[in-house]
């Protein structure tokens, strides 16, 4: 099926693409036209979204190698043959992980990098950097160092660094997957602004709820094929799952008056006087802006950071911890071996197959985990983390890059674990997941944890029937 628009900035005709040493194509006979305005690319993780975006600026196949068939043009240039530096002035790509695409350390110079590469005169560079910063409302960041920026600010700087080349088409690969709602809103507003100016803006995203209403068109990419999503068949954003009642209200973990932060005498604590507790079978969701202390709280609860003050209690048994970066876990040749290692270490007699099936990884079980898409990699890391019946489960941004099916798998697995008595604490920007799974939500801001008034329970529509917890004050907050 051809997804067509009236005035195409980019056009793909029967494009198929095979990565090097792969028998199966990652894109299959794709017919697609991209016009001015906002195009949303949705679809399952591993379906080919990132590959499709890389076609526009020639990185596929020119950087990645492999084999391509079909025809393509981007603003009249053939992206399969035109040198990438030339294409960069027509089509820009903001990659998924902004931290690994920065060349310089300061905002202004980072934005100017592409212009320096093109040999643009200094005076013109200054004007164009100004123009890009103004377009994204980041003039105030000019003199800042990248390391001091929030996730949303950093994403907009990465966008400015592409925009400064004045491309007709700007593609963004899951720009909000690591952002808090405020940062995500700022980035998406910037995308809408660019689209309103008449630029072709293509955004690959799993978090559709905010962006879909503003999109001029939706393209769904699944199994390497594209289809139009304008017929209203957008995947539902909400995880539809009913949560069974909790097992009991026995206290599982507790933090009392905890201050914590990186080691070293000169370091200020990140967490200040945090007192929290959670019960067996209970799911507690932490939310708050990037850099507020959620990860530090999880690491302290995991025992990875000794508290500078206060006490931490964990339940007997294994504590499972999923870090933000799934790559930190995965090092074995296959996904199956990753799960098996955790089971072996946990002295569990379970077979890896159940956990692989739970996360839809059966067909990927023999694949090298690091060859997987970001969403698939996240699922592999989750399977390797949650195997072996942990007593305490700590998840840091567990739905990063995950599609709806994977989120459902996560929800089901968490429910199975809590039904068996595990206590779960998850830090997430995914409000849908928190609403679906959490018995209590706790806001972490500026290193302090508070239970919002009326926010102790998720929305009624998704709230399970729950047995009141017996333990005293599972209350939360700072003293």
């Amino acid at each position, binding site marked *: 099926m051809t997804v067509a628009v009236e005035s195409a900035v980019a056009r793909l005709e029967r494009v198929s693409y095979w990565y090097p040493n792969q028998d199966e194509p990652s894109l299959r006979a794709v017919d697609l036209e991209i016009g001015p305005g906002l195009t949303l690319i949705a679809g399952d993780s591993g379906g080919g979204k990132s590959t499709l975006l890389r076609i526009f600026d020639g990185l596929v196949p020119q950087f990645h190698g492999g084999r391509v068939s079909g025809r393509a043009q981007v603003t009249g240039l053939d992206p399969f043959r035109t040198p990438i530096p030339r294409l960069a002035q027509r089509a820009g790509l903001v990659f998924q992980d902004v931290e690994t695409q920065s060349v310089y350390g300061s905002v202004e110079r980072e934005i100017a990098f592409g212009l320096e590469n093109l040999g643009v005169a200094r005076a013109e560079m200054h004007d164009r950097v100004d123009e890009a910063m103004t377009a994204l409302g980041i003039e105030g960041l000019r003199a800042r160092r990248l390391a001091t920026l929030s996730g949303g600010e950093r994403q907009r700087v990465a966008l400015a660094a592409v925009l400064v080349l004045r491309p007709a088409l700007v593609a963004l690969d899951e720009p909000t997957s690591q952002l808090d709602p405020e940062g995500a809103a700022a980035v998406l507003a910037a995308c809408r602004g660019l689209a309103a100016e008449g630029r072709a803006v293509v955004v690959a995203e799993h978090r559709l709820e905010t962006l879909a209403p503003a999109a001029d068109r939706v393209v769904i990419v699944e199994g390497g094929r594209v289809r139009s999503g304008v017929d209203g068949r957008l995947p539902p954003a909400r995880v539809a799952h009913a949560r069974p009642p909790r097992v009991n209200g026995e206290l599982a973990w507790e933090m009392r008056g905890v201050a914590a932060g990186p080691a070293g005498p000169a370091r200020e604590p990140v967490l200040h006087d945090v007192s929290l507790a959670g019960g067996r079978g209970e799911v507690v969701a932490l939310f708050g802006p990037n850099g507020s202390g959620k990860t530090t709280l999880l690491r302290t609860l995991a025992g990875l950071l000794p508290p500078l003050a206060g006490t931490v209690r964990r339940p007997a048994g294994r504590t499972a911890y999923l870090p933000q970066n799934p790559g*930190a876990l995965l090092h074995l040749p296959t996904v199956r071996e990753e799960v098996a290692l955790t089971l072996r270490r946990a002295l569990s007699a379970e077979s890896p197959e159940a956990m692989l099936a739970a996360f839809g990884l059966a067909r990927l079980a023999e694949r090298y985990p690091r060859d997987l898409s970001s969403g698939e990699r996240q699922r592999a890391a989750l399977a390797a983390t949650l195997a072996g019946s942990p007593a305490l489960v700590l998840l840091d941004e567990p739905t990063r890059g995950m599609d709806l099916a994977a989120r459902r798998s996560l929800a089901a697995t968490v429910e199975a674990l809590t039904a068996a008595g595990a206590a779960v604490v998850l830090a997430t920007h995914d409000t849908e997941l928190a609403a679906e799974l959490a018995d209590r939500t706790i806001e972490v801001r500026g290193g302090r944890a508070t239970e919002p008034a009326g926010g102790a329970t998720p929305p009624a529509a998704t709230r399970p029937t729950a047995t009141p917890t017996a333990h005293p004050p599972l209350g939360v907050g700072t003293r």
Partner: protein
Amino acid sequence: MNVPRAASHRALAPRAWLVWSLAAVTVALVTDNPVYRGLVALVALNVLLTWLPPWRRLRPLAVAVTLAAALAALINLLASHTGADVIARLPDGLPLVGGPLTLESLAFGGALGLGLVAALLAVAPLSLVLEPHDVVDAMPASLERTGIAVATSLNLVSGFGRTFTEVRDAQRMRGWKPGGLRSWNEVLVPVVVTAIEDSVRLAEAMEARAFGAGRRTSYADSGFGRRETVVVAAALAAAALFVGLRAGGAPMDWYPYPTLSAPPINPFLVLGCLGLALPALPLPALAPHEPRGRAK
């Protein structure tokens, strides 16, 4: 006019920093006289402390230079059995290290270590004071690509420590315990693979932003003012003095064997070393010029 914070911390033009560092390293390595090496180390430390940005940590460098110096001294003490003043003796049967340990070999090892300390402190501003883009600006046009490679390496190095902590913590939570060398595979493999993946991603991102298109231009001007001229002149003079005297066979080295003796001191060479301290001196007439980034 607001001065960009990132730029104001380096005060000197990047190319002046590069020349200063190379000259200081030359002085530190062209002689093994501990007096000159010690002077260069002190001067370089003073310059570094003067311009170290608040967000940079000195501790890793301090640990590295201390270890390097201690190791050099220890190795020479254990491996060189020359010298008249025996301070201890290891059994002759011990391979390599067996035999007398002398005061002279300890002193010479200390001088070697001091040379390493001076050289490391001399190049430290390139990574601790300058930003990655400054390193690119400091390179001659023909070496711009090398500069980019250095700059990106510096970025990746900073992420390396973070990745190591992440991986070690993640594996610990899966039950990994540090044991023999093989046990570290579970940590080192993901760390190395992550570093490679990050490098490939960065290369891809750079190419997508037209890296390699042809002749580059720079967003910043060269920024050479009076202060840079004076600093560079003093640094080059110091290096030239040491190299010239070395070529001319003037006595500047120190050899403590067979018995310990005081190192020779040439006042001109001392002055040359002190000339390297100019970047740390508050000279109103040579006030830093306006930073090269644009400020609004």
